[in-house]
């Protein structure tokens, strides 16, 4: 009692307590900042800085083959890009590749999930087997498909096609078939992801709604359209967003299977940016292409996120 009286007499009336609180809060904030700093710096160094450097580089002509022409060019690389036919064709290839692989993944993944939901036995086994392609490295997947599956005359797919009376096909040497092949490979590898997510969502749907629908004599198709699909919508949109962002920036599997060929038939934008930068050694223009890919990805995922919120 006495000591508290002395303290308040020394310092003042009510003020000390709130001051003390402020100091404590400030210290806590500082401590939190100190804890956060290393992670924040690491994040800056590994993501933000390279991104800014990429944008900065895209404003330069940086051509290793002709070092004497290097220098600041502002937006010139972007002007060249707009009139570069190969940029537009690779963007188109990217969009076709992304659109078709994502659609196929969702449709096949959902179909598989519905099928597996009704399985009485062996569901666990099916899940384990289905997830296998996802854990393989895309480069390995590319090598397997290129050498064992799709080689004309010698590959498994051609062997089956010949035996089925369809005749041999040059799967990776024909522009259209090559595009189909890379879409199939990507779909094969990533459908299990969609399947797992949708299966988990399906399992969490409330059974009583279906019960009520059955009492109202709704057909299976009606139940699917009016109940399952709307309830699964958030999960489907999430799958679409995640798979789209990955498909837009796909690289390893296409690089090992076709390297963008034949000609430029399967050259997605990411591959074109890589070839410009590291094969043609035109770093500035390659950076501009990478920035363009970044912008396209941001726009598309922005639209998808907006769709997710909209009812």
């Amino acid at each position, binding site marked *: 009692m006495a000591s508290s009286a002395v303290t308040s007499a020394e310092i003042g009336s009510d003020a000390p307590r709130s001051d003390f609180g402020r100091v404590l809060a400030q210290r806590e904030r500082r401590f939190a900042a100190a804890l956060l700093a290393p992670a924040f710096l690491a994040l800056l160094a590994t993501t933000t800085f390279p991104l800014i450097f990429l944008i900065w580089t895209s404003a330069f002509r940086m051509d*290793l083959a002709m070092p004497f022409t290097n220098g600041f060019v502002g937006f010139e690389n972007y002007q060249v890009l707009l009139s570069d036919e190969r940029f537009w064709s690779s963007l188109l290839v990217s969009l076709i590749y992304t659109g078709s692989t994502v659609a196929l993944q969702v449709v096949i993944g959902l179909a598989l999930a519905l099928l597996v939901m009704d399985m009485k036995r062996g569901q666990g086994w099916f899940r384990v087997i289905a997830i296998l392609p996802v854990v393989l490295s895309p480069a390995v997947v590319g090598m397997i498909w290129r050498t064992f599956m799709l080689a004309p005359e010698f590959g498994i797919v051609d062997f089956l096609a010949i035996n089925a009376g369809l005749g041999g096909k040059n799967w*990776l*040497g024909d522009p259209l078939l090559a595009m189909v092949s890379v879409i199939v490979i990507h779909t094969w590898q990533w459908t299990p992801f969609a399947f797992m997510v949708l299966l988990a969502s399906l399992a969490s749907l409330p059974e009583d709604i279906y019960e009520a629908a059955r009492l109202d004599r709704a057909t299976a198709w009606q139940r699917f359209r009016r109940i399952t699909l709307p309830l699964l919508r958030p999960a489907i949109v999430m799958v679409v967003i995640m798979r789209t962002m990955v498909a837009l920036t796909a690289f390893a599997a296409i690089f090992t299977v076709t390297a963008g*060929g*034949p*000609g430029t*038939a399967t050259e997605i934008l990411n591959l074109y940016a890589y*070839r410009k930068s590291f094969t043609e*050694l035109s770093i500035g223009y390659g950076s501009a292409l990478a920035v363009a890919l970044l912008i396209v990805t941001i726009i598309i995922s922005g639209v998808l996120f907006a769709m997710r919120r909209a009812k």
Partner: protein
Amino acid sequence: MTSFKPTRRTLLKTGTAAAALATFGPAVLRRAAAQDADLAPYKSASIDWQQASGETITVAVIPASYFENLIALAPQFKALSGIDVRFEKIPPAQIRQKSVIDLTSKTGTYATHAADPMYYALYAANKWVEPLDAYLSDKSLTDSSWFKFDDIIPAWRSANGIDGKLYGMPYDGEVTIQVYRKDLYDARGLKPADTLEAYMSNAAALNTPNDRVWGAALRGVAGAGQNMYIYPSIFREFGGDWMKGGKLTVNGPEAEAALAWYVDIMRKYAPTAAANWNWPDIADAFSQGTVASYIDAHSSASVINNAEKSKVIGKIAYARWPKGPSGKRTTSIWNWGFPINAALPEKRRKATWLFIQWAASAETQARTAHRFAGLTKRSGVNRTSIWRDPDYIKLMNGFGENFVEAAMQALQDDTDVDWRPRVPQWPAIGDTMATAIQSALSGQATVKAALDDAQRRIEPMMRG
């Protein structure tokens, strides 16, 4: 004076040391003597091999038997020079990019690397590597009467030079020749082709896909060292000129005729899969008996003569590149050379030069080829004298009929240093051309459209 009083511990120590000396001494001495004999041919050069002793250098090579043999001998170099050599093996598709990134960043990670001759123009324009002339003429670093630079195959030397200056020392190289199945040719009374026209008609005569034998195969997969390894020879043989009137030209009538010939033979007489094949795939198919003939590097002979896998050993013969309509033969004059990274400190550059001199010397070339103790011997030695050495010839002729004659003639007479345009922009040009060739082969574009498009894309690269 302190008297020597042996304790139990000193007695034990001395005893163990004496026993060890008695057991291992002779072996150590024998090894030292063997090493001296090993090193004697190098020590006869009048240079101080130890002048950069204590340095460590990293050398990037590709995983290939001709470099493995060199790696196996590296301890001899360490004993000779006191220089540590660390080898890093990088697949051919990546070594060009990795070395360019290292040279651009000037970190000096690779003191030297297996370099593609087409890259020297780029290296020289950026001053990433040192001209080697100064090292060759420096008497404290090179004994020219011992090293005998003039003995190195002239075509490879000129391929590794820009404006008369040497930038890379040839270590191992190859030349393109015709490889064919003698049994199949004899059965139909055919002769190896002397012209591209005859090569096409031979392929037509032998093409029997129903029996799983195709007439011919050439590299089809797109890439600067892949379809662009074979097409430039055809382009030159059809009379094509890369620098027409001083301007880099890849289209025009000669180019169209050359590409049409390539597309024609690949579509009609090569296995469909060959559109995606590089040389190992072709050599594998040939060794399985499914391809009657191919034109590619002479070094693929080791694959088709691999006793464990090949079904055609004893049925193989060789001939020179067929002549084109222009009357010329143009083989590749390709080699892996060693440049010196300009970003190194001076002493390490000396160490690197000593390594390069050792690797390119006649002695090391012989020790990694016919005198190599292991199973795989090199077939791409850099010395004219070795190509004439009876022991080497005996070894090489084991690959099949007419091998050394065809390769020697190709090396000496059938080459053309402007086989490909030697400009710094080559990586970009090679890739653009490779894509154009493949789009013509796959039918994505006509021959003319593919070449005109390539020309349109290449022009801004040259303008600067």
